[in-house]
């Protein structure tokens, strides 16, 4: 791994953000709107639901964590799409950079984009709704790690689709997370799902992450086994995502799509 090259790719996306104030605004705008929306919904449920009463902020915390996953995945996709939109694909893939360095650069840079968008929203939630994700304590770090790995995995799968099918796959990039959201049991316990879907949901890290989050906030108990399980599942998916990416890359070379990938 050459970290100078990884840094160079990261710098390319950092410059892109720094050069455009509307881009920064766009990164911050959507998470903030989400926080407002879920903040009010959360407040309503806290006052009117038996399940959520006395547990202020469970829904809002879930919304923040879900948005973290969403932003991580979208950031990864966006950085790849930027290369397609700017018709820079050929230049990137003829540069002496290994594919694993490209994946590492996108993975590391995605966190930056995610945090630019989410940190202001998280800070707003503290005075406005009296909710802080920091209430989750040390387990928060591990939950974020599992979410991040899974978010990047989804990004890898979508970018693999972009390599395989070209820019027409772009719409799938936006839809991918909404497809998984119902199975993620973000706002409700897994028991709500039909039995068959519960089996599928169990195979996703999201269920374990959000179940654990609710357990910490509602029962004040931490089950590290559950957290380890969620990280382990995320790692397995991540490795799978990397393998699929490599397959798509070699497939794209065979089809010659790297040569003229563009809008």
């Amino acid at each position: 791994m050459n970290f100078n090259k990884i840094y160079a790719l990261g710098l390319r996306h950092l410059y892109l953000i720094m050069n455009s104030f509307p881009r920064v605004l766009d990164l911050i705008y959507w998470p903030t709107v989400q926080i407002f929306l879920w903040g009010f919904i959360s407040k309503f449920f806290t006052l009117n639901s038996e399940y959520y009463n006395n547990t202020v902020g469970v829904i809002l915390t879930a919304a923040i964590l879900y948005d973290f996953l969403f932003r991580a995945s979208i950031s990864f996709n966006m950085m790849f799409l930027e290369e397609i939109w700017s018709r820079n694909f050929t230049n990137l893939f003829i540069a002496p950079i290994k594919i694993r360095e490209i994946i590492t650069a996108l993975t590391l840079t995605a966190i930056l984009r995610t945090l630019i968008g989410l940190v202001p929203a998280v800070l707003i939630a503290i005075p406005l709704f009296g909710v802080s994700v920091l209430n989750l304590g040390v387990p928060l770090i591990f939950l974020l790690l599992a979410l991040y790995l899974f978010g990047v995995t989804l990004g890898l799968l979508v970018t693999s689709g972009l390599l395989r099918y070209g820019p027409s796959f772009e719409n799938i990039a936006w839809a991918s997370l909404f497809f998984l959201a119902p199975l993620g049991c973000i706002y409700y316990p897994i028991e709500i799902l039909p039995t068959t879907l519960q089996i599928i949901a169990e195979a996703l890290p999201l269920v374990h992450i959000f179940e654990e989050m609710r357990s910490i906030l509602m029962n004040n108990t931490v089950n590290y086994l559950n957290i380890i399980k969620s990280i382990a599942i995320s790692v397995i998916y991540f490795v799978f995502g990397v393998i699929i990416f490599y397959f798509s890359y070699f497939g794209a070379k065979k089809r010659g799509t790297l040569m003229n990938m563009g809008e």
Partner: protein
Amino acid sequence: MFIEIKNLSKIYNKYLAVDKINFHLEKDKTIGLLGPNGCGKTTTIGMMLGLVTPSSGEILIENKNLNSFGRDEILKRFNFASPYVELPKKLTVRQNLEIYGRLYGIKDLKKRIHEISNDLEIKEFFERKTGELSSGQKNRVSLAKSLINKPEILLLDEPTASLDPDIGDFIRSYIQEYKSKNKVTVLLASHNMSEVERLCDSIIMMRKGKIIDQGTCVDLIKKHGRNNLEETFLKLARSQDEF
């Protein structure tokens, strides 16, 4: 022999884009790759750059198969410029050169960027976003990017396409001057026959994925009994025969 292309073919689904071509590039020479649109020039360049996997045949660099080199090991010796491939539009010229300089692992990058931007006269729009530049300016920036690593093998795909005569001449003069000062092997795909005559030591003519003739400009013009390369190109492109 520096680069040798042996029986190279590429089939996309059932479409034969490149059909068992053979040619070689001598070190530090400029070779023109000519042929009508869709004749397989870009696919050939793509295979040489490792962007397209050949269906059969091999590319040898100093008698070693291209596939036996590590991706970063071989690509740092190459570079490529084409008006159809752009640099990130929202980044300034300086930022783009900095990023590609880093990706190519250039030591003393500031000095190299300074040198190349002076030579190609891009300093005046150094801090402008690449997407805001004119075609001529973009082509010069693209050429600067392609020379940032002082490549041993430079692949140019129509470097002066859609440029006004003045800028086109500037680019051609620069390539000539650069070649006189640096050791570089150039493969130039172009539809501009006067450019090819001016820059190339020899020519490879392609049609329908095949090489139909090759030689020096003078030899080809003489062989086909024409007055200039343009007439020779037209004869070869329209003919159904192989030569």
